[in-house]
């Protein structure tokens, strides 16, 4: 599975959205991307890519696109 596929799969599963909703998706843009969904997503991204997301970056993952930028900092190219 490519990094993009893994990344998308976690968004789709944790935030209960469809693949076509991913582009432009923002925090609170869907009912399930609330603080609970967010923490789930962060934990799963850490596990899937074997990284530790710092406290300040937890808040920086504010959209589908921003999340990619954050992961890049950890050497994960999506």
């Amino acid at each position, binding site marked *: 599975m490519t990094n993009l596929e893994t990344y998308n799969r976690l968004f789709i599963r944790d935030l209960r959205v469809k693949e076509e909703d991913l582009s432009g998706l923002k925090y609170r843009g869907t009912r399930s991307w609330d603080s609970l969904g967010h923490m*789930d997503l962060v934990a799963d991204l850490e596990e899937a890519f074997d990284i530790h997301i*710092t406290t300040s970056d*937890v808040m920086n993952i504010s959209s589908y696109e921003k999340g990619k930028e954050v992961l890049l900092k950890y050497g994960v190219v999506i």
Partner: protein
Amino acid sequence: MNLFENESSYENRLLAENDGGGRVSYQDLNSFSEELIRRVGGKKLIFILCENTIGSLLGYLGCLKTGVVPLMLEKHINSQLLSRLMEEYCPAFLYVPEDCLAKAGECEIVWRVRGYCLCERNEFHSPSLYGELAILLTTSGSTGSPKLVRQSKDNIVANAESICSYLNIQEKERPVTTLPMNYTYGLSIINCHVRKGAAIYLTTKSIVERPFWDFVKERKVTSLGGVPYTYQLLKRIGFLEMDLPELRTLTQAGGKLPTTLHKEFAAYARETGKQFVVMYGQTEATARMGYLPADRAEERCGSMGIAIPGGRFWLRDEKGEEIKAPFVQGELVYEGDNVALGYASSRVDLKKEDEWNGILYTGDMAKRDTDGFYYITGRKKRFIKLFGNRVNLDEVERLLKEHFEGVDFACLGRDDSLIIYADTKGEEKLKEIMEYLYEITGISPRAVTIRPVTGIPKNESGKTLYSELEI
């Protein structure tokens, strides 16, 4: 008694400001209230769909000022559950955000104000209301249970006074909203600050969003409150390393905080010169009943403290007698002027007077140490808390049984973990159950475990034997 009795000294002051720069003064609230009562035309029942915005705040406070009785509901309440509540209670009006108008059903918009619509319903069965009844809150909001708590103006004022005294709240405080307005704890934060003429900082953003913290810093917020889950989040997002010199008070309620987190936040507060106050409450007591004084937060870690000023705790044994000895577990009983009037299960109950007379059997089991500090040890009633919100296990069972005809269910669990035994098989079915539960109640699947079984254990009279099911 009246929440606004000292108002003349602060009517020109700021009542609230939102994160978009919108502001509203106590004087604006007065104009709003006059208009509200003119349009509603007296003491009637109204449903408010709440969010942390100026429109919502004005609606709630306007009701308190004028005697209109609101049922406070979450903005995101499932429309099916909302319709059921409307059928049961027959409100004359709804007060809803513009983006939720679709949920209002058939009604006429009579006033658009601050992003909200006052909608008049064509209602012939409007309930009669007890003169002292001020507000209604749900007992288990997410399942749409029709069981409500009836609170009077005196209840609200008594609790607000007491909270102001033990937290030393003054007019200069600037609290930020971290909890919904339809939730007793969130509401009590509003009540006690309004009592002192303080300003409230309203935001719909959550603590995991950076703009929330920008708002906190820019507006020099002085206090915030949270349920146990909030504190877990605060830790994960690096709150303990943030520089927030103006923030002086952190409060916690809505369930027992894990001892490690309690310790950590208490130590943080001591090191940074803030106060961290663990509290205990229930909607049935308007909001708060107990608090652990900030200077005891570390020494009595794990305790919910002592009774609030004006209240009294005692423990009751199985025979109903008071337990005098320390470290003996019993049901926690609270006495005070903030004990609500009683429950309502249907609209005829809204004319009932005070049924509880200042005594509340909390349903929580507790013990007391030799110095009089109380520790919650368990629960008598069948409910759990999911992320601070009370969820009635029997209600969840009822919802599931109604929808999945022919499937038997048994729900149990502990805080932040709901366990559903389902007498069914198949991955698909289990997924469907999870989806339905989320759809209707918003209960997060991550807090739910569904266990398929063959047959739910029952006793001779057909009652579920929960003790035979594992948590």
